């Protein structure tokens, strides 16, 4: 069969799609490891973080080609709008739409990271959490779109990616629990301790329910009023 330009586009679209799925999975694994502070002498944390950023960029490049070829290719009609607007594609709206959702989420993460120095840390972190949503959506799109689904090698790739991401998540959750237990043993600290690998939870200091400036607020049943002793002190002091 002659390789028409249309089928070149078609095959490029599928290939770049699969590669970006693999790269996205790798990005997820690296991101989870970075956040979970996995490091060793030969695998320093800054290098992991760096690799995570670079692999994500590579994934975006392949993703761009994937979207571009999908839109240009006339074999199936996808349309330019559905590159960004989900579920607007005439061709398999649900599964293509999921792909669009994944693209939207990844775009948000990418843009926020590009503007990282200019936005607040909390905003950046909130948007970055969307990445956790983009991966399963991308995986669903890959499997559901049906083009190469249920072919053994595709299933194999999907299984590998999934086990890598799920494995990394499991490692992170277990490690996180252990770190919390360790922190609870550290001294008699009444407020949440910044646990490594976790966003520091705000200390309880100052977080009193009373938000007015002047109403007396109870600071806890255990704190005794200190006034009476002060009075006694002064009276005892007088000759």
């Amino acid at each position, binding site marked *: 069969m002659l390789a028409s330009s249309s089928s070149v586009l078609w095959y490029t679209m599928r290939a770049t799609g699969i590669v970006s799925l693999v790269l996205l999975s790798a990005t997820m694994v690296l991101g989870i490891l970075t956040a979970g502070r996995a*490091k060793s002498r030969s695998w*320093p*944390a*800054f*290098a992991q*973080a760096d690799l995570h950023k670079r692999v994500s960029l590579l994934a975006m490049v392949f993703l761009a080609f994937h979207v571009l070829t999908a839109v240009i290719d006339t074999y199936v009609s996808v349309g330019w709008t559905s590159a960004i607007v989900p579920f607007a594609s005439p061709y398999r709206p649900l599964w293509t739409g999921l792909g669009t959702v994944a693209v939207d989420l990844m775009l948000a993460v990418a843009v926020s990271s590009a503007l990282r*120095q200019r936005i607040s*840390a909390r905003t950046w972190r909130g948007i970055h959490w969307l990445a956790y949503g983009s991966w399963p959506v991308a995986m669903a799109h890959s499997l559901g779109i049906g083009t190469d689904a249920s072919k053994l090698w595709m299933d194999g790739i999907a299984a590998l990616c999934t086990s890598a991401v799920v494995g990394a998540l499991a490692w992170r959750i277990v490690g996180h629990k252990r770190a919390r237990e360790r922190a609870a043993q550290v001294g008699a600290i009444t407020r949440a301790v*910044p646990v*490594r690998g976790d966003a520091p939870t705000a200390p309880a200091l100052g977080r009193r329910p009373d938000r007015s400036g002047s109403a007396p607020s109870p600071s806890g049943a255990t704190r005794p009023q200190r006034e009476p002793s002060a009075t006694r002190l002064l009276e005892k002091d007088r000759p």
Partner: protein
Amino acid sequence: MSARQRVAIRVRVDPIACDAYSYCAELLPERVTLDEWGYPIVDGTPVPAELVELATRAATDCPRRAVLLERVVVGR
């Protein structure tokens, strides 16, 4: 500023923002070591020219933006 003086940078850490990621200690061990709990101990001597790039990278790569580079005047 006399002819002998120049502006150098030195590394400082915002201890409130710091969350013990330790990238700074990995990138710039000449100026940053870690205490037993993983938090940075910073040597405040000015950074020599050949390490400025690494120091800058430590500041931009820090996930909490806790590494600060301060300009100091060095020399007579």
